[in-house]
């Protein structure tokens, strides 16, 4: 094991996959000379040259659209969209082109593109640079959705995403880039579609994604002192979604709290709740609770932003409501 930040782990995965497969290339705004807006691609242009690490104009439509074309023509592009909020300006390329091509063409095409992007609030970046829009992409048949919460998961899942023959959106959280953790030495891949139990417990299942995994773990620590044991499940990928692990955990605990940073209404938490209601109703001893952002854009002012993003206290509150 080695200690690495989330950002370094992503960088390492990109480097390894570029070494292993010369059809893998990166493109995006400021990913080369600048090393990426958050420094994630630092050093890659020096190592692989400007033919494989391409600084692009501010043209998201062309970044993603060209990646889709190149993917269909045999390459494995890894485009970066600087903030997830900007997915709105290249959505056709991702949704109507990449996601549907294989199906529409009767299975005769593959589009192995891994689109890296950044979600989340916490930097005071306001309504157009802080959103968590993962639920949109789970509503797109043909697309896989990955949301790692730790350095080790980020590395292993990015490797699998790049090797996957389908379009993948790989969602990084800006507040996790500096977080360190143990990462296995050498090459490894984590299959898409496998949840991970980040902490075992018998009283309440908490399914949390991305940054919220850390908040759920903090809540678990606090509640453990009071004798309440949370089981924290990190789905890691929302599509495919590992419902077996969640259902099994709920079978054990009888209680479910779902936590995500996206707004509650129309969020992926609704889907998880529906799955458990449909397939695990008999396991439940209490109503399902969702902890998520209020139905509003992300505010700028620090106290509002802090109140917007679900925190440890809100998770504890929800747990106590169903205990």
């Amino acid at each position, binding site marked *: 094991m080695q200690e690495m930040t989330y950002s370094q782990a992503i960088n390492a995965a990109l480097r390894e996959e570029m070494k292993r497969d010369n059809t893998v290339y990166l493109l995006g*705004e*400021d990913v080369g*000379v*600048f090393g990426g*807006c958050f420094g994630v691609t630092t050093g890659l242009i020096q190592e692989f040259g400007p033919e494989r690490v391409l*600084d692009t*104009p*501010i*043209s*998201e*439509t062309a970044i993603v659209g060209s990646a889709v074309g190149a993917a269909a023509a045999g390459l494995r592009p890894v485009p970066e969209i600087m903030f997830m*909020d*900007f997915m*709105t*300006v290249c959505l056709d390329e991702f949704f109507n082109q990449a996601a549907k091509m294989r199906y529409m063409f009767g299975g005769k095409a593959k589009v192995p593109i891994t689109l890296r992007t950044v979600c989340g609030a916490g*930097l*005071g*970046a*306001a*309504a*157009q*640079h802080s959103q968590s829009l993962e639920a949109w992409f789970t509503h797109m048949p043909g697309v896989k959705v990955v949301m790692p919460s730790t350095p080790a998961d980020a590395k292993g899942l990015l490797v699998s995403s790049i090797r996957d023959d389908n379009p993948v959106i790989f969602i990084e959280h800006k507040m996790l880039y500096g977080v360190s953790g143990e990462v296995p030495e050498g090459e490894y891949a984590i299959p898409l579609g496998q949840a991970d139990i980040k902490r075992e417990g018998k009283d309440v299942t908490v399914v949390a994604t991305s940054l919220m995994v850390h908040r759920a773990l903090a809540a678990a620590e606090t509640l453990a002192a009071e004798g309440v044991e949370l089981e924290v499940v990190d789905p890691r990928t929302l599509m495919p979604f590992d419902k077996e692990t969640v259902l099994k955990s709920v079978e054990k605990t009888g209680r479910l709290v779902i936590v995500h940073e996206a707004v509650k209404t129309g969020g992926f938490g609704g889907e998880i709740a529906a799955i458990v209601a449909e397939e695990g109703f008999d396991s439940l001893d209490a109503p399902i609770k969702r902890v998520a952002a*209020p*139905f*509003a*854009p992300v*505010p*700028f*002012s*620090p*106290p*509002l932003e802090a*109140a*917007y993003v679900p925190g440890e206290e809100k998770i504890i509150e929800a747990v106590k409501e169903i205990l």
Partner: protein
Amino acid sequence: MAFSKEEMLGMYRKMLLIREFEETVANLFSQGQIPGFVHLYVGEEAVAVGVCSNLGDKDYIASTHRGHGHGIARGASVDKMMAEIFGKINGYCRGKGGSMHIADVELGFLGANGIVGAGLPLAAGAAFANKYLKNNGVAVCFFGDGASNRATFHEALNLASIWKLPVVFVCENNMYGISMSQERHQNITDVADRAVAYGIPGVSVDGNDLMAVYEAAGEAVKRARAGEGPTLIECKTYRHRGHFEGDACVYRSEDELNEWKKKCPIQRFSTRLLEMNMTTREELESIAAGVKEQIKTAVEYANRSPLPDETELTTDVYCD
């Protein structure tokens, strides 16, 4: 173009007010007093002031992530702007928007914008509304060289050209979009050349020359008001500071920056005023002192303003 002394000194003062505002924000940001991102306009003041000095009540402007200068040039209150940047309830957006979203629709200021290139079609729309309402108003969109590579640029110019909309597209070519120099991000040197594709006039001017900007914008606004349609104006300029505060600027040289600092639009205009015997050193100094005082007051106002209450989280998502 004949200007009264008041008009000339008024424009000088506005440029200085922008400079002082931005330098103050830079300082406060480095002291950790300002949350989020800030993108400063230092070095580009002549563009905003030269353009906005042509505008009247019914006119609109749409701005960018680098929007403080546009707001001030349009006549926004520096008190309320500063309070917004501090995230306070007395700010233009009740603290909900911050630096990147300062707006005052009543003032004809359609807002700074976090999405590069988003302002172009918005300005076309405001121009459409003015034309529809027959109120003789125009709209101006500021945007960067980098933004001229977005689809919105091309779609908005085309639409405005066929509908003959009273809109002026002002490209602030500061030679970079974050780390990408213009020669790396487009295959032309004059963004104004792109006007040809839409059959509209395209002019390229020295963006650090207030009078040159004023005249080009004046011509374009006149054309727009006369129903002759849009114009693309390119103002060649340079940002003295990083893309955002905290940017180490690894992509450009110190020499290049110093060359451009010598072409400072404010110094250039004050020299001109002195040469024309329009003013004296003493008068310029007293203007500068007044500006300093005004910004100091703005910071005090921002500091005094309360933070928003948590109940603000879900207000104004919809109209009542």
